[in-house]
């Protein structure tokens, strides 16, 4: 392993941070496509120089970028995301039917086996797939066509499909999460989907057995244990040991279990990281202290990690796509904030430092171990 490349999406451009394996000294790129929002950038695990990026703004809509040389140069690829058939309606905030309208790409998930295949999670919630390097996109319409689709309603951030997980042991299995429809699993490569929300409880949903309507913020797994899922829900940190068939709450000793990010240590499948946020009404850390919490027991027992993080007057947020890990011997943990900081722990969370502290608000952080 020779180094690390961190792909950072912000409200005003993308940035690439690079370092050698020591992770002491960092180079920060100039803004890429300055002025555009980048919801997500992610590289192919098969070809690390192939990077896909979601570029968007309110004036000019969605465009897509692809690099074949690790981010040195970029080319515009396909941005035609058309829902299959007559789109129909989902539920609006006030409970009325609302037409599905494509707004932006939240998440890109390159295939585990083919650099030209990539999935896109979009708002209004749907999953698209390209098999030609992002030039053309086709909807996997079985998801949106699920018989609950007309009941899906947006969260405050929109009706966004923000998480896509590809099972490395079973290539027919995919997971997605949608705010605030919930979580779904496909066991046939994305043709059909089923809600995986049993065990989730959301106070604002009267029906305790509701299949959809849960505001899932993020799901993560360790590649060696893809049936064990960890979820940061709107409130509640959850865990499933059977591929989402049943969830149990593992918030344990957390003072607040609201938050957005969740991720898993690269070498320890039961070591999990979250960044608790004070509440859904106050999107900043409790008591102005930025704390990552780590559980080495797969949940329930959580320890605050604060060394090197601001412990007073800190009122930033950490958005759902803004945490990732590297796979160096001592696992590196990275996260970005809405205050423009990107933090790194090169010792699995024990201590933290700032790689860069004055970027535009950070939306996404994706790490490549090269």
């Amino acid at each position, binding site marked *: 392993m020779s180094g690390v490349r961190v792909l950072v999406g912000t409200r005003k451009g993308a940035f690439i941070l690079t370092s050698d394996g020591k992770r002491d000294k960092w180079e920060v790129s100039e803004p890429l496509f300055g*002025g555009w929002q980048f919801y997500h950038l992610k590289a192919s695990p098969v070809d690390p120089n192939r990077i896909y990026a979601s570029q968007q*703004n309110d004036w000019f*809509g969605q*465009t897509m970028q692809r690099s074949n040389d690790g981010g040195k140069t970029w080319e*515009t690829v396909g*941005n*035609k995301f*058309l829902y299959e058939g007559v789109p129909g309606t989902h539920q609006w905030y006030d409970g009325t039917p609302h037409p599905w309208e494509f707004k932006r790409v939240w998440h890109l998930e390159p295939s585990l086996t083919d650099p030209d295949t990539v999935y896109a999670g979009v708002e209004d919630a749907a999953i698209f797939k390209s098999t030609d390097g992002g030039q053309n996109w086709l909807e996997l319409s079985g998801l949106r066509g699920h018989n609950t689709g007309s009941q899906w309603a947006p969260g405050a951030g929109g009706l966004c499909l923000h998480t896509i997980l590809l099972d490395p042991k079973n290539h027919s299995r995919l997971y997605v999460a949608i705010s605030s429809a919930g979580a779904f699993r496909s066991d046939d490569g994305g043709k059909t989907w089923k809600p995986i929300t049993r065990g989730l409880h959301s106070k604002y949903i009267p029906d305790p057995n509701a299949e959809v309507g849960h505001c899932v913020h993020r799901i993560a797994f360790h590649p060696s244990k893809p049936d064990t899922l960890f979820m940061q829900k709107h409130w509640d940190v959850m865990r499933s040991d059977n591929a989402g068939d049943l969830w149990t709450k593992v918030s344990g000793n957390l003072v607040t279990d609201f938050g957005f990010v969740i991720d898993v240590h690269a070498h320890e499948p039961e070591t999990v990281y979250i960044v608790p946020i004070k509440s859904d009404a106050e999107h900043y850390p409790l008591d102005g202290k930025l704390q990552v919490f780590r559980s080495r027991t797969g949940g329930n027992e959580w320890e605050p990690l604060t060394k090197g993080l601001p412990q007073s007057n800190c009122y930033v947020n950490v958005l759902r796509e803004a945490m990732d890990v590297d796979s160096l011997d001592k696992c590196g943990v990275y996260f970005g904030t809405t205050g423009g900081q990107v933090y790194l722990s090169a010792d699995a969370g024990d201590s933290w430092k700032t790689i860069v502290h004055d970027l535009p608000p950070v939306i996404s952080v994706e790490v490549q171990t090269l």
Partner: protein
Amino acid sequence: MVRVELPFHLRKLASLDREVSIDVAGAVTQRAIIDALEARYPMLRGTIRDYSTDKRRPFLRFFACEEDISFLQLDAPLPDAVASGAEPFMIVGALSGG
């Protein structure tokens, strides 16, 4: 040749100077100009008008001959001065402050 002025971000996206001259086949209308622009610069597809509705993006306006022509029919002929290249067809983004 029709002259088209693009906003900053679209110029950057297409690696263009402030103004571009394009051939427009047939009647010079908003639709014909954007069709020709997108054909020559495919990276601009979807950035000026929505794919599914063909409507101008809501934060953009079209100007020509010191007039806001955003609300003309897409297929309405544009002024002769635009068709002849004497005046540019301007694509303008809404201002934003903060």
